[in-house]
């Protein structure tokens, strides 16, 4: 159903010189879902997000938001999207209150309405005690909260979050997960990138996995696990590292377990998203090629 698709990326490619950061990908995000975009470091997640939010132009391909092809930096459809960038982007030499107010002004929200929204969001994020502090004096977690208020001040119907919990403590992560679910339950579509599998499993209705600029899998977490094989056997035999095998039938997994040599350490369990991710992107830490920083 076309109407169900709130964000559609068609054939998005981004090249930096000879390096292809994003390679002809198609992404569809359905209205009202939490869509996870997973990939190792340097896989192309942030570049894709930056293209989808018009921060950088694609080499080819186009983005549709609410069925409208995004054209240019001043396209009004951008007002439907709120973005929390991976790097916290605040003006450090003014106060928290001024940072938030600035975003309300940039989004042309009438003064009275802006005040109401500011009060509600500030209260929701517990920012009252910090409003008159300079942004530079806040910890990373509190800066992230300010960035969230900034992203939500214009009441977007789509929230794009680029690794929102990177560098946060456990409490802040859980607070953010709760917030994402709450916003989603009120109808906000969420597009979130992460490389934390527990986060994706906890939050996402559907997932796309990107590696070396290409989407290599897409579906619900359950579908992806089922595709790999719902039953995992994790084992270590003498002189070998930990190994993994996946099976579609429990009986096959048990049969394999029983065939392993005596003395092998074996765990039989359900396949999880981390298994899927590592099988698809590689278990070795190959230190994926870093995305070229797009600057002069």
């Amino acid at each position, binding site marked *: 159903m076309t109407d169900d698709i709130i964000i559609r990326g068609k054939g998005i490619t981004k090249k930096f010189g000879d390096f292809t950061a994003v390679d002809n990908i198609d992404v569809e995000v359905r209205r009202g879902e939490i869509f996870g975009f997973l990939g190792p470091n340097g896989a192309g997640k942030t570049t894709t997000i930056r293209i989808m939010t018009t921060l950088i132009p694609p080499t080819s391909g186009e983005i549709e938001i609410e069925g409208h092809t995004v054209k240019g930096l001043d396209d009004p459809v951008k007002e439907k999207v709120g973005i929390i960038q991976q790097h*916290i982007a605040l003006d450090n030499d003014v106060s928290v209150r*001024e940072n938030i107010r600035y975003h309300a002004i*940039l989004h*042309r929200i009438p003064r009275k309405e802006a005040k109401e929204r500011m009060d509600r969001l500030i209260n929701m994020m517990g920012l009252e005690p910090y409003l008159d502090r300079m942004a530079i004096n806040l910890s990373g977690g509190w800066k992230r909260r300010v960035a969230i208020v900034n992203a939500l001040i214009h009441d977007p119907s789509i929230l794009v979050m680029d690794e929102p919990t990177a560098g946060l403590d456990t409490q802040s992560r859980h607070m953010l997960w709760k917030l994402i679910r709450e916003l989603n339950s009120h109808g906000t579509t969420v597009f979130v990138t992460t490389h934390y599998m527990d986060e994706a499993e906890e939050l996402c209705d559907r997932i796309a996995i990107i590696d070396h600029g290409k989407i290599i899998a897409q579906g619900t977490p359950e579908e992806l696990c089922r595709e790999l094989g719902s039953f995992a056997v994790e084992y270590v035999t003498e002189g070998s590292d930990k190994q993994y095998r996946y099976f579609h039938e429990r009986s096959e997994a048990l049969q394999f377990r029983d065939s392993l040599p005596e003395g092998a350490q074996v765990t039989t369990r359900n396949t999880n998203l981390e298994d899927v991710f590592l099988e698809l992107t590689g278990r070795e830490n190959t230190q994926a090629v870093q995305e070229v*920083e797009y*600057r002069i």
Partner: protein
Amino acid sequence: MSILADSFRVAWIDLAFIKRNILVVLVTSLVTPALYIVAFGYGFGSGAEVEGFEYIAFMIPGVISISTMTSCFNNVAQKVMVQRTYYRSFDELFLCSMKPLSVILGKSWAGMIRSIISCTVLYAIGLIITKDMQFSLQAVAVILLSCLTYALMGVVAGMMSNSHLTLNLFTTLVITPMSFLSGTIFSLEALPEIAQGILYVLPLSHTTECIRSTILGTEFPWISLAITLVYAVAFVLVSRHLVMKGRNRYG
């Protein structure tokens, strides 16, 4: 949505910074031009005449011209570079629906305001201490144009620099030599013709001529005004090109 109204929205955060730091802004905007007047005007030029005017009257329009450049350029370029590279807040402007021209102009206003403060004080001092200078609305207009031109140049430099180091290099190699060599504190006519030809390429030579002629009441150099406008348009086009290509932003 109007480009001008949006540009003031963009400028709001920089104006909030000025409001918060008004004393520091005033001091930093006034000390250097005051030193120019004392050192060059009273120190070296006391009693001298240039082009038929008291040296101090000849020099103050030049110092005003320098102030339009250094104050606008430094403030705008530093802000844009820091917001792009260190705060990463420059990107936030493009997460809203905003025309590139609104952003370019918006980033210019705060630098212009700081420059206008110092130019106003310098102009007022000049009117008090020498009767060769006169107040004119044309002077105000060309000072504003000059401020805008150098603020736009600051936007370009701020977008192209990724660190204080590269920005300082630009200041050392371009801004400082231009301050001294563009007929600001001495007449270009004192130089050989070849040197004059080279120095007339620089925008500061032309803004200085415009400002000086309107303040001293001499014939207005329309060609200099046209060249200043060409520079302003060129800076707008270059910065717009950088914005559209996404090259202004941290990747």
